[in-house]
């Protein structure tokens, strides 16, 4: 419950139409299919629903909201596209206010000469790509997420491990500058943008780089990003008429996509590694059975049926080549086929390959990955980083957690091989194990599985980027030495009153409050 005079103070900043304490509006801003959130709802935890919702439209309004929040002890939870699946934007304390950023939705500038874009946090992958591709540019990748995801928050939460990260690197490395409203209300600008606002010359510093604390997983716990300067890449394909045939869009010009199948995971992994180290291909991805079946079929029932029949085999490799000339495309194709021939894979037959056309589409403009959420509960269990050669260790460990917990009704897709994206030639996004089940019936068991998988990944020596909730109670004790101390030090410096998105990720309650 937030007092009416506080709501009035907020209304004076954004206007009465853009702040609300109305129950329906508050409830509408608290959706998240993460099983631990479902459990909290089932237990009727009142803090799940925010006490107010506010929609600022400028950096200055965000700053003013922070000052009011400080005065009246509010907790601020910034929200981007609002389709987070891991509970990151769900309140956990009384006096929480959801700061919905949808009015900060402008692409402020696309600098074709210097290949950069400047935009606000509500700009989605789909919008930026549509605007940049017209100009022969693009952002270099798309996550396994809906196209409506906002670039800024999605990358900050998930690191930007994209299907084309093999050539273009991790998305976090595209942040050239940020404007961040700090919990104090002060406005921080980073890199050359800090010295000369709007200048994308260089992304770090001066000197030690404060932006580093915001790029990955601070998840709104150290401030609100209200403007981003972003690196763009050359898009060699010109117009791309994807709307004409939604399920079988043409491969973009100057791109070639290849699918191969392998009899065993070792061979698939070896081929994948060899491709990365040969310096070809913008994307190298090993997909798993459940990914294949969800992306390959339009209907849930058919996905399940064909999955159970084994129509979608587990060891498929998807390679995307891009070339600025025929010479490059032909060269890369030759090298690719040399490798596949040497190790013993074969191209996917035409029927199966055609089913994966949606996937080809996703790799450049996203969209169909949202099909994964069809089964109801969809729990992401943590994204790892490692070498593709580690996949057997990862798989065995995950099976040891998943199989004993399976019960009737939880999708068999849970038992398949994980999937892997290559990033930066030789490194892999490893081991995302998605769990599917019934929203109400399976929330407890899936929450437990997710927790065991997360903790176990660390105990098993598998690197990861911490991602899902809740892991707060054990994370810092398992990473170190002294990791937790420095996380808390950063929080003390930037958010001493614990105003911003409290209890999330690494920023669980300060020790003095825990006692």
């Amino acid at each position, binding site marked *: 419950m937030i007092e009416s005079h506080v709501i009035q103070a907020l209304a004076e900043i954004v206007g009465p139409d853009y702040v609300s304490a109305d129950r329906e509006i508050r409830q509408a801003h608290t959706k998240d299919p993460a099983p631990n959130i479902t459990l909290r709802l089932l237990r009727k935890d009142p803090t799940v629903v925010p006490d107010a919702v506010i929609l600022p439209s400028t950096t200055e309004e965000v700053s003013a909201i922070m000052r009011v929040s400080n005065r009246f002890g509010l907790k601020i939870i910034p929200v981007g596209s609002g389709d987070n699946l891991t509970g990151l934007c769900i309140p956990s304390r009384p006096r929480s206010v959801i700061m919905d950023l949808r009015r900060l939705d402008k692409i402020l500038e696309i600098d074709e*000469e*210097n*290949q950069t874009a400047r935009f606000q946090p509500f700009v989605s992958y789909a919008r930026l790509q549509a605007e940049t591709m017209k100009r022969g540019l693009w952002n270099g990748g798309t996550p396994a997420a809906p196209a409506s995801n906002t670039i800024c928050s999605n990358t900050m939460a998930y690191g930007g491990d994209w299907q084309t990260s*093999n*050539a273009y*690197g*991790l998305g976090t*490395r595209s942040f050239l500058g940020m404007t961040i409203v*700090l919990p104090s209300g002060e406005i921080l*600008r980073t890199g*050359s943008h*800090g*010295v*000369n606002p709007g*200048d994308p*010359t*260089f992304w*770090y*510093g*001066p*000197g*030690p780089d*404060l932006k*580093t*604390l915001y790029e990955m997983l*601070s998840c709104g716990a150290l401030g609100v990003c209200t403007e981003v300067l972003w*690196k763009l890449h*050359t898009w060699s394909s010109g117009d791309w008429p994807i709307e004409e045939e939604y399920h079988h869009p043409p491969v973009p010009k100057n791109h070639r996509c290849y699918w191969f199948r392998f009899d065993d995971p070792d061979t698939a992994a070896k081929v994948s*590694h060899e491709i990365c*180290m040969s*310096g070809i291909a913008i994307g190298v991805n090993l997909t798993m059975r459940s990914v294949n079946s969800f992306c390959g079929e339009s209907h849930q029932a058919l996905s399940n049926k064909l999955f159970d029949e084994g129509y979608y085999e587990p060891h498929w490799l998807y390679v995307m080549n891009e070339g*600025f*000339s025929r*010479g*490059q495309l032909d*060269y890369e194709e*030759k*090298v690719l086929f040399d490798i596949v021939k040497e190790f013993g894979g074969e191209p996917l037959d035409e029927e199966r390959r055609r089913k994966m056309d949606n996937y080809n589409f996703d790799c450049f403009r996203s969209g169909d990955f949202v099909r994964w959420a069809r089964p109801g509960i969809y729990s992401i269990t943590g994204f790892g*980083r490692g070498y593709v*050669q580690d996949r057997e260790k990862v798989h065995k460990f995950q099976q040891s957690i998943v199989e004993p917990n399976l019960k009737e009704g939880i999708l068999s897709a849970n038992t398949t091989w994980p999937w892997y994206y290559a990033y*930066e030639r*030789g*490194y*892999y996004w490893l081991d995302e194990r998605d769990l599917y089940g019934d929203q109400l019936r399976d929330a407890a068991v899936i929450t437990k599985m997710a927790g065991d998988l997360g903790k176990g990944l660390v105990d098993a020596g*598998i*690197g*990861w*980027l*911490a991602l899902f909730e809740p892991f707060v109670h054990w994370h810092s004790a398992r*990473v170190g*030495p*002294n*990791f937790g101390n*420095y*996380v808390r*030090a950063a929080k003390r*410096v*930037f958010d001493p009153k614990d105003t911003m998105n409290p209890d999330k*990720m*690494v920023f669980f309650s300060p020790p003095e409050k825990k006692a």
Partner: protein
Amino acid sequence: MTTEAKTDVFEQLSAIVGAANASKDPAVLEKYSRDQSLASARKPNFVVKPGKAEEIQAVVKLANQTLMPVVPYSSGTSFAGAAIPAVGGILIDLSRMNKILEVDTIHWHATVEPGVTFAQLNAELKKHNLRVQIPLATPPSASVLSTYLEREPVPGSSDFVFGNEMINDIIAVMPNGESFTMGNIAIKGANHTHPGGPGLDFYRLLVAAQGTMGIVYQMNIRLIPYPKVWKVLFSPFECISDVQAAIKKIQRKELGYECFAVNRFDLAVMLTDEDAADAKALKAGTYIGINGAKPWSAAMRKRFEAAFAILPPWTLVMSIPAWARRPEEKVAWQETDYRDLAAESGWDVFNTVGSFPSLDKLMMEEMVSPWRIQKKFGFKGTSQQLMFHALGDKIKGIEDTLKELAARQGYPADSIGSYVQPIERGRSFYCVFDLPCDPNNADEVTRVKALFNEASAAIVDKGAFYDRPYGIWADLMYHRNAVYTDYLKKLKREFDPNLIMNPGKLCF
């Protein structure tokens, strides 16, 4: 601090690192009081040479107890005064920690300690057909760890993946003496795959920090293979505007790997045969000492002038290496595409410039171990360097400003050495301009310092950004960003409450 207290500190330091590795001998301290720049000299009170991380931790803890400043020091190669103790204190010379801890030939990376030099690492890597990328003009005697930690771009920086972020993870002794592992390896048993996290990225708080945030004693870095087939091509240009435009065109077709432009002065330096007596020191990277470099002989200057006279104002160097499968075919299609682009755009492509034979071989060597370009320090004895990032279309304005200021001070523009290299496919550029200077001529030192100071400030307004704000650049940057500076200071106080780590640098 009283003499008695100092003696006590020295005894404790000696107990930590061993008597042979601690010194307060003025002659020894003198060696640590200067670097290759014109920065003011200042001696430390003590020098210690720890042999392992625990010794660094013990020294830092002692420094906290006695409130003595601590300055980390690796190979002693610095052109910016970063390791000169501003207020004395304990200088921690890390050169004894010089082990190559790991070379991963499957994923192409190596783990090194701070004392490992480029020459040392490359000698080891050659066995595996791998190499570490060394920034243009960095002596082979420089520390790999410190160079990468100070964020100096490598010639392959145009490539998003192989030339950009070269650090995989770091381990540091923090200002309170604790050890802190940053990156994936903070999880026991995990691999060297990413410098961030797990959970939150801290590592860039220690990068370009000049040792103010902690002492990094272990780093894993990415490597690249040695080329199997390698072609280097050259194109003459009249002015920097045209060079940067050409580089952008090349980069936006993602052609080649190393790509940079050198001006007439720098290329003439590389092409001028050194005086025989200096050859060994140049190749070892010891040519430039803390008292500068030995000035050229008259004969060498003559050779330089002859080379200078026939070179174009700017030369674009385009390197096409191939290290994987079908290397000949890769170089062939890249060369064809490059020549097509140049023909379409109207610039010439040659196997050399100024009719110098084997320029390609020379440049290949210089990209692997850049010893020839060090000779520029002998032109007058030393040099003041301006190093910054700028957007391509801003470089001409910056160069013009520099030349105008030089002309006003009677400094010959022809003596300004320069090279520019693209980062991230030409999105931006890293630029270096050198102002040669005779360190033994007090008047000239004063004039060059004045020109350097004036130019440093003037070019900021023209688009120069000092991401590594050494010396006077710190004020130029931090004065323009109050909130950033304030929070950097707050973070510093949180990490280093006694402010012992290299005080006087950056905004601390």
